[in-house]
């Protein structure tokens, strides 16, 4: 029986629920559905409800498109659903939740790497 990826709407009242990514798309082309599912289920088992999407590959205008059904996300968060760290990061970047510390950490690390690369280039240039 094929279940729609938008969700079954069926769940057990006392189960632990979580908002997480489900990787769809195909080989070398990921596309994530942001879903509310029961935590113990496997990634590709039927979900309760899809509440958004995230395309990690930037488009022609160098944008990564994220859709969020904020009304339903707010409902499930109010009903005790948890979020995975990537979902928390996305919600933080969108302004719905505070910005996650992992975002600040990743940005800081990238800046350190970029500065180190610039510093390495300069002495090589000087020697030449």
């Amino acid at each position: 029986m094929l279940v729609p990826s938008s969700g079954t709407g069926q769940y057990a009242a006392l189960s632990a629920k979580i908002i997480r990514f489900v990787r769809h798309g195909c080989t070398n082309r990921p596309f994530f559905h942001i879903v509310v599912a029961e935590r113990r289920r496997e990634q590709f088992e039927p979900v309760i409800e899809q509440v958004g999407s995230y395309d990690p590959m930037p488009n022609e205008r160098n944008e990564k498109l994220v859709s969020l059904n904020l009304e339903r996300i707010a409902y499930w968060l109010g009903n005790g659903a948890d979020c995975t760290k990537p979902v928390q990061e996305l919600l933080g970047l969108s302004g719905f939740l505070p910005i996650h510390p992992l975002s600040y950490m990743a940005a800081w690390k990238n800046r350190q790497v970029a500065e180190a690369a610039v510093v390495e280039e300069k002495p090589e240039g000087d020697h030449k």
Partner: protein
Amino acid sequence: MSVFRHFSRKLVLNTFKSDIKLQINTHCSVCLRFLSYQPIHYDGKPDPGPVFIKKEVQTLLRTLTRVDLAKVFKKRRFGETQLQQPVYKFMTDEQLQEAYEEAKKKVDTFLQIPPVVAVRKPKDKVLSKDPALQGLDTSAFVFTDISYGVRDSERMILVRETDGTLREADWETRDRINQLYFPVAQRQIQTPKMFQDSNLEDLLKRGEYNFILDRACLQFDPNDPLYQKIVSITYQCVNDNNHFNELRSTRHFGSFVFFLAWNKLIDNLLLDIIESEHIEEAKALVELYSHIHQVKYESKENLQQIDEYIKNHASKKAALELAFQAYKNAAKRKGEVEEGIKRAHGLS
């Protein structure tokens, strides 16, 4: 040089349809560039919306549209597909009358005039600045709120830039994203190439006004500056070439006339109406002008109001006076002939 002039003149003359009267100055070299029109937007000073929505103005626009049921319900081709086989029925006179009444109700939906509103102002709201996020990613994130029951114009669409600024998306991004997640049928995500200047010129040269206006209505919102630009250029082209019949009995005639009246360009149209002796429409046009520019005519009689407009507000005074005088003479002669006929039949 003269050979070039001869051939280019022949080329231009042959590209036009035969029923259009064209005046080409034979002494100057023929200019093949037609798009010298400036786009005219509805600034918002004053706002055209409240004036356009008034019931009196809407009825005047409907009168001026000159509804011809045969043209409104004509057979249209949609590529190679035929929509429906025509159905033939036997009807009594009463049933035919009922069918006509129903058709007239359908005309209201066919002839919904595309709304006239002030042009939208650019969006530039910054919600949050987080320079600590600089370096997180090399591309921006576009967040769309896909909650149910929210209008496209009110939907929350935010952009998190690479330097960490969270701001509201600008209008072009909004249009694109709304079309992506909540598509309107036959509307393209990227602006169709036919609206670019060179292609638009070519279409206007060929006189494809309805095609341009129909697609512009479908593709854009009425407060989009690009929509107002395309539509204003098309209207100016129609006005200058006197191709009013192309737009009559379509939904576009209403907003076309409103545009002309708003920008004080009604003289060509008034001339066309008087010459074809549709005096009701001439009265309506002059009344529309008074509604829009708050002009009060001294006389209450409609023919005299037209006279007043021609004397005080028209730019093509001479031509209009001539045409109106000719109409009045013709009407007088007609009246005399009818009087004569009535007397001959012993009725008066």
